[in-house]
């Protein structure tokens, strides 16, 4: 088979940006205490939140940069060259008509209002630092489901927010969690009351528009006993020659017998650093599923975690990562079995092409007393050419005897024989290759709602096109 040629990723169709946006406020580059005080004031936040922020800023400044992962790429990001707070609007609108014209046009192009009409129960649309549009179906509100932008939740439901904010991911957990806690803005807040099932997905969409932008949304989801929700997030940004930073914190609390499915299709442009902390606590007989797709960004460091706190709790991470030229997807999962009779599954699939790099970095920990738990970890990597790279960094800490743990890792190259077989049926080289790639990620795609599955397959097709001369 002729070798795939190295081609730039020029098929990113979300790389456009709006010129005519007039922001209400755009901070100077760099992060200062004064900026945090100013943004807190603009948001008319309660004092307790400002205190959390100021403390977090100190933690952030005192913590060193990670010394693991892609240290080289991390060192290239200039934190002083980032706008940490950009306020495009005065308030969150409930009607697309009221959203500023340029911003609305962007979301139209991204297909968000259309998706909302067709198959979503609620939408949060964030532009730069703020949620510009938010909706939830009335019947859900009547059932007591709360779905809000995080800033509004701080004001409207301070008791719930205070109870859980920063409890799953403490400020000092890692440098970027501290950064987010200091300068967070936007994101979603969801509370699902007891025994309530939200059958139709809720979605958040995150859009960066400015160059050198920093986006720091904060999301908190709580499902009360016996309830369930499916939350989906997507994200894109314009392509610029200089870097942007996205650093989110997502905390999930699945109370006994409840279920959260959290689906991400991350498709940032290739100048975005995506340094995200995601963690769930999962109580007795509850389930948390992270369905995590990473297609875009320059460097992603993200390891969704589930802490299995109660008997019968179940955690799952199903992820795919795609790395093309200049990209490094350092992704993985963490499962911590605290209680007995808990179950966890990790299935990680990665594809590297054109010198792209994928890493699986995972933790499986079984704590003393977590007897009879079951855990399985499987990582499959697919390399499309010699220039690409994939590594696995699995860590296992098993402190209990009576457990069933399985681990399997495979690295394969698209074989000449597979290509020969498909091409002998008349398929062109790039069609054959994308068929193999689509087959490889099929276990992930089949977990997505149909509309997203179609979109993801199409996205991967675009990534494959033009890769072969």
């Amino acid at each position: 088979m002729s070798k795939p040629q190295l081609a730039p990723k020029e098929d990113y169709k979300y790389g456009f940006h709006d010129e005519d946006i007039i922001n209400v406020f755009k901070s100077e580059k760099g992060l200062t205490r004064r900026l945090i005080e100013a943004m807190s004031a603009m948001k008319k936040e309660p004092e307790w939140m400002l205190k959390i922020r100021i403390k977090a800023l100190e933690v952030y400044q005192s913590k060193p940069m990670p010394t693991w992962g892609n240290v080289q790429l991390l060192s290239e990001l200039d934190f002083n060259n980032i706008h940490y707070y950009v306020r495009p609007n005065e308030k969150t609108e409930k009607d697309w008509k009221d959203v500023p014209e340029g911003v609305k046009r962007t979301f139209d192009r991204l297909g968000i209002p259309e998706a909302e009409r067709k198959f979503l129960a609620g939408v949060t649309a964030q532009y730069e630092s703020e949620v510009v549009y938010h909706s939830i179906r009335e019947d859900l509100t009547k059932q007591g489901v709360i779905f809000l932008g995080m800033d509004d939740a701080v004001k409207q439901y301070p008791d719930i927010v205070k109870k859980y904010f920063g409890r799953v991911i403490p400020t000092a957990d890692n440098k970027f969690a501290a950064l987010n806690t200091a300068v967070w803005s936007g994101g979603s807040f969801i509370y699902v009351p007891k025994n309530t099932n939200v059958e139709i997905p809720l979605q958040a969409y995150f859009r960066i528009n400015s160059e050198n932008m920093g986006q720091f949304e904060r999301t908190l989801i709580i499902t009360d006993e016996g309830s369930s929700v499916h939350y989906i997030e997507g994200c894109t940004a314009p392509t610029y020659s200089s870097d942007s930073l996205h650093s989110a914190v997502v905390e999930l609390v699945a109370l006994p017998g409840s279920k959260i499915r959290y689906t991400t299709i991350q498709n940032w442009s290739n100048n975005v650093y995506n340094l995200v902390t995601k963690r769930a606590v999962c109580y007795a007989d509850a389930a948390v599923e992270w369905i995590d797709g990473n297609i875009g960004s320059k460097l992603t460091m993200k390891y969704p975690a589930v802490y299995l706190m109660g008997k019968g709790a179940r955690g799952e991470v199903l992820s795919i990562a795609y790395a093309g030229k200049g990209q490094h997807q350092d992704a993985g999962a963490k499962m911590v079995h605290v209680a007995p009779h808990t179950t966890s599954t990790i299935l990680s699939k990665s594809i590297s092409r054109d010198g792209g790099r994928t890493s699986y970095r995972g933790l499986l920990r079984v704590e003393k007393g977590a007897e009879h738990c079951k855990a399985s970890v499987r990582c499959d990597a697919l390399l499309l050419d010699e220039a690409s790279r994939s590594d696995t960094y699995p860590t296992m800490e098993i402190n209990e005897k009576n457990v069933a743990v399985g681990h399997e890792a495979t690295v394969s190259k698209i074989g000449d024989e597979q290509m020969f077989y498909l091409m002998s049926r008349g398929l062109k080289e790039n069609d054959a290759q994308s068929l193999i790639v689509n087959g490889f990620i099929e276990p992930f795609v089949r977990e997505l709602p149909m509309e997203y599955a179609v979109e993801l397959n199409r996205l991967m097709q675009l990534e494959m096109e033009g890769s072969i001369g």
Partner: protein
Amino acid sequence: MEENILLRIEDLHANVEGKPILKGVNLTIRDGEVHAIMGPNGSGKSTLSNVLMGHPKYAVTQGKILFKGEDISELSVDERARKGLFLAFQYPLAIPGVPVSKFLRMSLQAVRGKEVPIIEFRNNFKKNLELLGINDSFTGRYINEGFSGGEKKRHEILQLALLEPSLAILDETDSGLDIDALKVVSEGITRYRTEKRSILLITHYQRILNYVQPDYIHVLAGGRVIKSGGKELAAELESKGYDWVLKESEAATPAKI
């Protein structure tokens, strides 16, 4: 050029990883003919089928492969397929996550060079599943994944039936089949055969030739066709083995048709 010649192989030499395997193969197949290539293990039978289809691991170092009057030895695998060449694999590979029906529709569209309406495809697909005694659940399964040996071979013949190539190269399609499966597969091959469509049947055993009657039989040994004859040659090989042909050819020049 002679009438009705579908494939003409002239003095074909080919290497695999620098090692010469084919050392001057000559063969002519006309429209509608069935040719069987027999020979001992390691004689170059599978190499010949891979070289004809254009496997990148094999390099043609000398000679020509004329298909429909055109030398195809420089064409890519998919171009050859679109010209009407087909290879039924001896060991078809699994391709996880790719549903059989999706693959077959894509293939059909590729060889026809145009869109195939889903309804037409479905009807055609269903009809052929029934003819080959393949269970309906096949549709949603992934290419060759978890298939039994027999299912893999039926799947190959299913593709043959759908794609309707001009020349089908069947590489040891009979190997590993029990007698019932062999019958079904042979019937599939026979249905495919018309006065326009030809078959190059590569086999180690005479068994399949009881079901798919060849017009010509060639013995391949040491990378050359050392003997050719009619279907009676099969019975002779069956009773005497290959040794006598090998001995006979030692003194003689390579056989030509």
